[in-house]
C-alpha cells in the first residue's frame, strides 16, 4: 500500500472507479456496484502480488492483456464454498421445503452463483435421500467459467471430506457422505448419478436476464458482495424467475430486509433465510 496513504486515499477511489468502468466497457463484466471495500482489498492484494505501485498501472495491464484479466477476474469472484455449509439450513430445508416438493411430479431448481459446485452436490444428495432427485431438473450457474468446469467434474480434495462429512451428519444426512463418491489418490469424485440432472451454465446475475422459470432458487453468499442497489436489482431478477409459491434460499447473513421485494415473500425460516413467494402480488 506504499503508493497510497492518508493524503491520496481519494486518488485510489478514483482509480478504482476507472478500473471497474474500463473492465465493464472492455470485457462486459460489471463490478461497478460490488462492495467497494471488498474490491479495494482484492485490488490492493493483486497490486502487491504483482509488485505494481498504482491501480492505474494495473488498469493498463488489465485492459491490454486478456490473460491477465482472466486471472484478475479470479481475484474479484470469491469462489470459497463448502459442502453442507450451514448444516442447520439443510435441516430446515428438509423440514420446510421437502414435504411440499414431494407433492410435485416435476420441479426445477436454480443455483445462482454455484461456484465449484459443492452446494449443488449437497442439495442433490439431500433430494436423492428424499426420493426426489429423479423429479428434479437443476440449473447451476456462475459467471466464472473456471469454477463451472470444476463443478461439472465433481472432483474435490480428499482432505476436505472430513469437514464435509461432519457437516453432512449435522445436516440430517441419512447415510454416509462417502456413499456418494469414489476416492482416487488425494481426490474424490462424486457419482455421476448425482449430476446427471444438473445443467451447468455461464450466467451473470448483473448483466444477464432471467435464466429460467423455476420452483426454487438457491442464491447463497453471492448478494453479500453487492451494494444495496445491486442487491435489490438482483433480488428482483430472482423473484421474476420464481413461479408463484416458489422458494428462495439466501445465505445465512443475507436478507430481504432492505429490498423492494420483501413484501412479495413470506419467511418460512427467518434464521435460515428460507422464503416463499406469495401467490399473487
Amino acid at each position, binding site marked *: 500500500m506504499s503508493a497510497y496513504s*492518508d493524503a491520496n486515499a481519494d486518488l485510489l477511489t478514483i482509480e478504482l472507479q476507472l478500473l471497474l468502468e474500463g473492465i465493464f466497457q472492455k470485457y462486459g463484466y460489471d463490478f461497478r456496484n460490488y*462492495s467497494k471495500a*471488498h474490491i479495494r*482489498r482484492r485490488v490492493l492484494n493483486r497490486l502487491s502480488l504483482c509488485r505494481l505501485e498504482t491501480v492505474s498501472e494495473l488498469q493498463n495491464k488489465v485492459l491490454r492483456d486478456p490473460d491477465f484479466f482472466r486471472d484478475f477476474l479470479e481475484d474479484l469472484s470469491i469462489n470459497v464454498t463448502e459442502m453442507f455449509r450451514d448444516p442447520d439450513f439443510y435441516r430446515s430445508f428438509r423440514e420446510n421445503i421437502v414435504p411440499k416438493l414431494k407433492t410435485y411430479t416435476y420441479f426445477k431448481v436454480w443455483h445462482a452463483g454455484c461456484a465449484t459446485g459443492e452446494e449443488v452436490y449437497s442439495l442433490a444428495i439431500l433430494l436423492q435421500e428424499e426420493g426426489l432427485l429423479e423429479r428434479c431438473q437443476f440449473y447451476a450457474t456462475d459467471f466464472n467459467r473456471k469454477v463451472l468446469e470444476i463443478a461439472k467434474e465433481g472432483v474435490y480434495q480428499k482432505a476436505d471430506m472430513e469437514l464435509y462429512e461432519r457437516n453432512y451428519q449435522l445436516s440430517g444426512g441419512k447415510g454416509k457422505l462417502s456413499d456418494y463418491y469414489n476416492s482416487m489418490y488425494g481426490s474424490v469424485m462424486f457419482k455421476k448419478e448425482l449430476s446427471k440432472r444438473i445443467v451447468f451454465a455461464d450466467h451473470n446475475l448483473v448483466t444477464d436476464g432471467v435464466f429460467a422459470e423455476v420452483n426454487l432458487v438457491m442464491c447463497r453468499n453471492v448478494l453479500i458482495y453487492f451494494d444495496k442497489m445491486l442487491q435489490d436489482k438482483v433480488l428482483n431478477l430472482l423473484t421474476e424467475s420464481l413461479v408463484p409459491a416458489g422458494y428462495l434460499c439466501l445465505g445465512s447473513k443475507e*436478507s430481504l430486509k432492505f429490498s423492494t421485494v420483501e413484501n412479495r415473500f413470506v419467511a418460512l425460516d427467518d434464521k435460515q433465510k428460507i422464503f416463499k413467494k406469495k401467490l399473487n402480488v
Partner: protein
Amino acid sequence: MYKAIVVGTSYGGLEALKLILPQLPEDFPLPVIVVLHIGEHKNDTFIRLLNELCTLQVKEAESKEPVLPGHIYFAPPNYHLLVEDDRTFSLSTDEKLNYSRPSIDILFESAAWAYQHELIGLILTGANSDGAEGLKTIKSFGGKTIVQDPCHAIAPIMPRFALKIAQPEIRLSLEAIPARLVELASSKKAVE
C-alpha cells in the same frame, strides 16, 4: 474527533472485553466494532451476556447495516467483517486470513480506509499474529493505535506482534484501557 473504535482479540478476549466494554458509559459517542476469534461457534451466548453487562447495545453486525454510535458490533462467526466508506457494514466469505475468519486485519484495514485518521485501533490478548498488519495500516493513516501490555495479557502473542509490527503509540494495562478510551472518544483531535 474520532469516529469509531475497532478492536481485535482472540484467546482470553472474552474476559478482556467483559472488563472493558461494561465501563463505556451510556453516552459513549463512538461505535465499537469487534473481531473476537471464537472458531465456528455461534455468537449468541456471549452477545447476550455482554448485553446484560453493558449500557451500550451489543449486537452482531449485519450486512449493509449503518455503523452507529451507541452500539458495540461483533463480526459474525465464519464471515469477514468490513466497513465501507459510506460507513455501512459488509460481510464476506473470502478465504481465511492468518487462519482466521473473521480476520482482524481485514476489519482494521477496511476501517482505516473508511475513517482514515479518525479511527482508534485496539489489540488485546490473543494467541496469533492477526491484527498487527491492520493496526499498522491504521497508524499509517494517522489513527490512534493502542495495544494491551503483553506482560499482563492472558495470551501475549497477539499484543506482542502488534507492538513489533505496528509500533503503536499507546501500550496500556487492561485496567487502564476503558478510561483512556473514554478520554480519547471525547477529545477534540487537532484538525490538520
